[in-house]
């Protein structure tokens, strides 16, 4: 029984939250890695793209709620998501047209593009803060049912002392992420456009020679990356809450995930997201109770690192990868 309790405890506080967080990071890292693969720079504005997109989704959600539309047990934000993606894509394509295209045509150094993305980050950050009702507040926009099953229900079914709950937002995160990944990989591997994207990422000049329209590939990349970013941001916001600054901070774990998997490698980004999330949660979780169930009586909390330092975990992973395998686990773009 104690073993079962330990397992349930672990599932409730480590596995489920880390899986949901990992899925959100994976979606974010996929966007970063796609932009890196095609446009060849690390997009610092990605976090604020997520924030901006989520803010758009929230506004549309409020609009839908005001009209009395809802999805029953599912959050209304899911219905608003396509609108949010469309609005954000228009904005992001605008930034590409106004900002990035110039440097791409000039073949500037990647670091100049990184710098430009910092400028875009500022603009998006300011715009997000200016949106009515969002600003710098913490916004909760999850409606519908909260739990698939709650701790009490679980305890009643199983008779264990420890409970397990699964929130709708967590289940939704996993399902949506799985769908997104499936669709993305199918698109990249099967469709004509996806193949064009991969070709362009592998060798720009060869791709141009074979008649691939670079602007089209770039546009498509921005749209896909934005869609992934907005989805990730919305799921993150549903799971926790929306606060613009958190999306700037999530940039570091996302970069770490993308680099761990190998920048430019979509499969690596997904794996990296889960690696970062599981390490982060496992290292900041106090293991005392689990140890108690397993028959140990530790003095301390058995917490390797306090939760304030969770970003240190992604950083350490990043450093380790840079030290030992700078191309990432899945062989991304060259060093």
């Amino acid at each position: 029984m104690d073993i079962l309790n330990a397992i349930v405890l672990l599932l409730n506080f480590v596995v489920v939250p880390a899986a949901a967080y990992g899925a959100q990071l994976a979606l974010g890292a996929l966007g970063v890695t796609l932009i890196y693969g095609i446009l060849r720079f690390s997009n610092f504005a990605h976090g604020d793209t997520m924030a901006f997109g989520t803010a758009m989704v929230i506004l549309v959600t409020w609009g839908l709620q005001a009209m009395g539309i809802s999805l029953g047990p599912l959050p209304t934000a899911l219905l608003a998501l396509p609108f949010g993606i469309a609005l954000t894509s228009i904005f992001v394509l605008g930034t590409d047209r106004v900002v990035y295209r110039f440097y791409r045509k000039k073949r500037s150094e990647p670091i100049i593009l990184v710098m430009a993305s910092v400028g875009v980050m500022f603009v998006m950050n300011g715009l997000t803060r200016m949106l009515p009702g969002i600003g710098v507040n913490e916004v909760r926009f999850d409606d519908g049912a909260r739990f698939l099953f709650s701790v009490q229900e679980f305890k009643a079914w199983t008779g264990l002392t420890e409970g397990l709950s699964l929130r709708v937002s967590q289940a939704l995160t996993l399902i949506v992420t799985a769908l997104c990944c499936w669709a993305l990989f199918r698109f990249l591997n099967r469709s004509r456009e996806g193949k064009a994207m991969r070709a362009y990422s592998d060798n720009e000049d060869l791709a141009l020679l074979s008649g691939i329209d670079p602007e089209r590939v770039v546009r498509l990349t921005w749209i896909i990356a934005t869609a992934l970013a907005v989805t990730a941001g919305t799921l993150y916001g549903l799971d926790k809450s929306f606060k613009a600054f958190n999306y700037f901070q999530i940039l570091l774990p996302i970069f770490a995930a993308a680099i761990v998997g190998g920048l430019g490698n979509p499969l690596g980004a997904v794996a990296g997201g889960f690696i970062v999330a599981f390490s982060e949660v496992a290292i900041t979780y106090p293991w005392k109770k689990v140890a108690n169930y397993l028959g140990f009586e530790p003095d301390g909390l058995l917490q390797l690192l306090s939760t304030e330092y969770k970003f240190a975990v992604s950083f350490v992973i990043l450093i380790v990868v840079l030290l030992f395998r700078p191309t990432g686990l899945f062989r991304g773009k060259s060093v």
Partner: protein
Amino acid sequence: MSNTRQADATSPWRAPIMFLILAALFFAEGTFRNAMFSGSWNTALSILNMGLISAVMALGVNMQWGYAGLFNAGVVGFLALGGLAPVLISSAPVEGAWAAGIPRVALALVVGLGTLALSAQVWRRLSGIVRVPALIGTLVLGFVLYRYLFDPAVIAIEANNAASAGNIGGLGWPVLLSWPVGALFAAAAAWGIGKVALGLRSDYLAIATLGIGEIIVAVMRNEEWLSRGVKNVSGLPRPVPYELDLQGDTGFVAKAAEWGMDPATASAIWVKLLYAGLFSFVLLLLILLAELALKSPWGRMMRAIRDNETAAEAMGKNVTRRHLQIFIIGSAVIGLGGAMMATLDGLLSPNSFNPLRYTFLIWVMVIVGGSGNNWGAALGAILIWFLWIKAEVWGPEFMRLITAPLPEGGLREHLLGSAPHMRFIALGVVLLLVLRFAPRGLVPEK
């Protein structure tokens, strides 16, 4: 980069004229009282002082970016480390902290660093299948020993007079001494991070520094034994006299009366002038040193590396080594700026270290001023700082102006209310515009 940095002929009068315009702005701020300017020399001088400190930080960033093309996205961290120095060197010693466990904390930190050094040696010396287990074993043992030493000592120190202290306190030495120490702290961190991230893709350094910046700030916020965390360390000693002492000094009061000023204003302005003198001295000294370095063979080598890494490498220059060198020097200058800032504020408040404000604002200063040109970076720093502060006043005024045609109501209210956030947008737009249309900045590199 190379195609944007070729020297076009620019007027030699450009920099002096820019500095004159800047001086005129400060003069206007000090003398005219209207919707745009405060008309108070006190305000003008406090903006100038922080501007001078920003100029020092901008010099540091300029060394990294302008001389070597390195993107440091963690300026805030190096700056915060520098700010820690006045706390550790100059704040008053905390009674009982030594007995509570300073030696033990020091030992723990030595063990921690020793573990990392030992692991590096293990990795280098061993090979074959024992390598990975030995590395992991060293790390785990070191970590356990470190926590065993560290945790009880920290609890004891934080329990020691928690209301007013609860930290290790300082040495009580003169505050000016802490400035070079701040530079050293930042340099040490830069060495560690540069060792790992340099020599790889240019983006990697940006991402790694972004991380170290966040972590240093997180450490300062949470480690109460070190910097009292969010409780702030206040009352740092000053290198200049206190206003109250000046007001009590009959000689000073008589002097102030001669100038026709009341003692309170006069003392505030005098103190700020002293600070401005001190900061200007440091700034000018740094610019002098930097210019001398740039004109030396070393400086030519740095520029050669920046403009064409491959060619420089072919000439036998160790690019990664030189990058590490300049990254450390630049970070040290940023740390110096951080120490100066903590001294000016008289307090260290880790909660105020915001990356948008400290990392990226400094970046905008360098880019606007003219990357690669020390005078340009200094000019950009003071100018952008002036505009950043004044935008707080001008933003709402501007909003009121453009929303005047709108009917009274929710939308207008909202736009007026969100005017402060316009600063971020304005900053981003300025950065993008300069990067695109004047990539060499206001005062281009010669």
